[in-house]
């Protein structure tokens, strides 16, 4: 789901699907059009959150998917007649959308479930919906002993003590954070990012990076095939490998906790029902259902108090309190600020040097 982005196709398909959905369902009952990222992730949500929420609220939830919602959001607003109501998209797009007038400001008095969540998990325009993490993963063939395996980004950068081939994501998001932690910055003191310092630190490890990966599938393949011995990868990709029996492991230590969020499009056709849905979607019980269906963590920490998630399962989830406390929480506000955009623009120049 967080894979490389095929704008054109995704956008075109999503628009076509949206038009098709609109044409078919016109009943008196309240309804919304909810958009997520498709695939196994959207199926898991349908079971865990969407169906129960529709039943509880007595509304109809039409679904659509867009691997990259951003360009479609822009087009919908530009057309003056948006068809989407609620979008599940990386938090940065919600914030940027809010700043550019694409996304409605949220009234948290109507969202008691969201208002009860930690302030860092929400902003003026959106509320976190699920968490994933960029973690340090490694091969158990190369590092069989738990004590001798890389556990921090400083270890990842230490090519003498931890020899082996490495891969990082071909994108500055989370990669700059890891570099700064490797350089000794505490996980809770990362922002605002010192981009110069991060790139300088990355310059150090660059000769030892075999692959700068672009898709989640690629990161998993590299580790699984033994092409690299350690990699920064998304937790869901690594745990899928482990389930298939691959001899790999990962640590949440110094992981970078990332989220997608729910936001409501400006001028959404069913905004009243949309607000009700957003509140229900972060309900602790529904949120607790999510990790029973897919390897993503609930965004509402109260989900862990419902008793639905077993302690063993909680240990595997990026947003479980014990795991979250060992990680850095990504600041999407920083990444969507002009400084963050500037950092993204510098990335290609860094790679080419």
């Amino acid at each position, binding site marked *: 789901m967080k894979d490389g982005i095929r*704008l054109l196709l995704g956008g075109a398909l999503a628009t076509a699907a949206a038009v098709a959905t609109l044409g078919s369902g016109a009943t008196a009952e309240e309804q919304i059009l909810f958009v997520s990222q498709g695939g196994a992730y959207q199926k898991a949500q349908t079971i865990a959150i969407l169906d129960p929420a529709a039943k509880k609220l007595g509304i109809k939830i039409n679904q659509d998917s867009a691997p990259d919602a951003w*360009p479609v959001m822009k087009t919908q607003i530009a057309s003056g007649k948006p068809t989407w109501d609620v979008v599940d998209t990386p938090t940065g797009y919600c914030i940027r959308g809010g700043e550019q007038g694409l996304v409605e400001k949220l009234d948290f008095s109507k969202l008691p479930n969201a208002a009860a969540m930690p302030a860092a998990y929400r902003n003026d325009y959106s509320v976190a919906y699920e968490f994933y993490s960029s973690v340090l993963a490694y091969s158990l063939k190369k590092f069989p002993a738990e004590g001798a395996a890389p556990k921090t980004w400083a270890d990842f950068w230490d090519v003498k003590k931890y020899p082996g081939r490495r891969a990082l994501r071909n994108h500055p998001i989370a990669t700059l954070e890891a570099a700064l932690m490797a350089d000794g910055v505490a996980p809770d003191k990362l922002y605002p990012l010192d981009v110069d310092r991060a790139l300088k630190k990355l310059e150090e490890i660059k000769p030892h990076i075999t*692959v700068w990966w672009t898709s989640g599938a690629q990161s998993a393949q590299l580790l699984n*095939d033994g092409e690299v011995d350690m990699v920064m990868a998304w937790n869901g990709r690594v745990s899928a490998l482990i389930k298939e029996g691959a001899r790999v492991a990962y640590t949440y230590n110094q992981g970078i906790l990332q989220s997608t969020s729910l936001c409501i499009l400006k001028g959404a056709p069913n905004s009243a029902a949309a607000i009700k849905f957003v509140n229900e979607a972060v309900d602790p019980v529904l949120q607790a259902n999510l990790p029973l269906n897919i390897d993503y963590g609930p965004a509402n920490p109260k989900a862990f108090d419902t008793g639905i998630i077993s302690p063993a399962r909680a240990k595997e989830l990026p947003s479980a309190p014990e795991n979250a406390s060992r990680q850095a929480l990504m600041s999407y506000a920083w990444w969507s600020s002009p400084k963050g955009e500037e950092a993204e623009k510098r990335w*290609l120049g860094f*790679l080419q040097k």
Partner: protein
Amino acid sequence: MGQSASGQDGEQRLMLLLAAPALLVVSALVLVPLAWLVGQSFYDDGLSLAHYQRVFNEAVYWRSFGLTFRIAALVTIVCLLLGYPVAYAAAMAKRPWNAVILALIVLPFWTSVLVRAYAWLVILQRTGVINQLLERVGVVSEPLALAHNEFGATLATVHILLPFMVLPIYASIQKIPHDLMQAAASLGGGPAYAFRRVFLPLSMPGVISGMTLVFILTLGFYITPELLGGGRVVMVSMVVSRNVELYQQWGAASAVGVVLLVVVAAIFYVVGRIVSLDRILGPK
């Protein structure tokens, strides 16, 4: 005289009419989008040269253009060196064998580019077929870096584009009468001399179109260098997609495409002046 001219006119009009559907399709699918692309490249919240200023001022673009043209030239040369003998063999071989050779060339066309890129990964990567073999035989102690670099990306691109070189050369070699070489021999030309003075010039139309096809197609390659380049081989196509994501404006990407188009057109203009395509392609 006048009658025959009007007959010619009528025939021309008929031809034009017959070609009209094709012309319409071409204008709808090529010219209109192209005009749209060019138009967008000048748009940035109003008429603006901002996208072009960026392309000309920032080194990242020129590095990518340089790399892309270098790889395209390399792929073209390697394809020519590998493809010419294959085309020659296919054109000269006797009955069942020429079909076998052609089938082997065309067969990979039925496999998707993505699958072929992954197949090359299986062959080239550190734990891949070649490295395991070399290590077992004891030729190398450390696996060779065959994938995730320019070498891997170039090799896989050559593989995918080879048919585009072989088929046009095959077509023009096939048209060369066999007795021409015999005539050259009877006049005292050695095989090498006859090949250089008679055969090669006659196969040039195929060589030129093969080289043109391969060169142009390489310029737009995306998936293969992305998967086999390890993130280091940043071709122009990737810069185009990056610009859509980064600037969230089609214009930022369009400008890169337009510059590529103009540069390619300029190259072909210059090459055309030097090689004189007319003499090679056009039997006057």
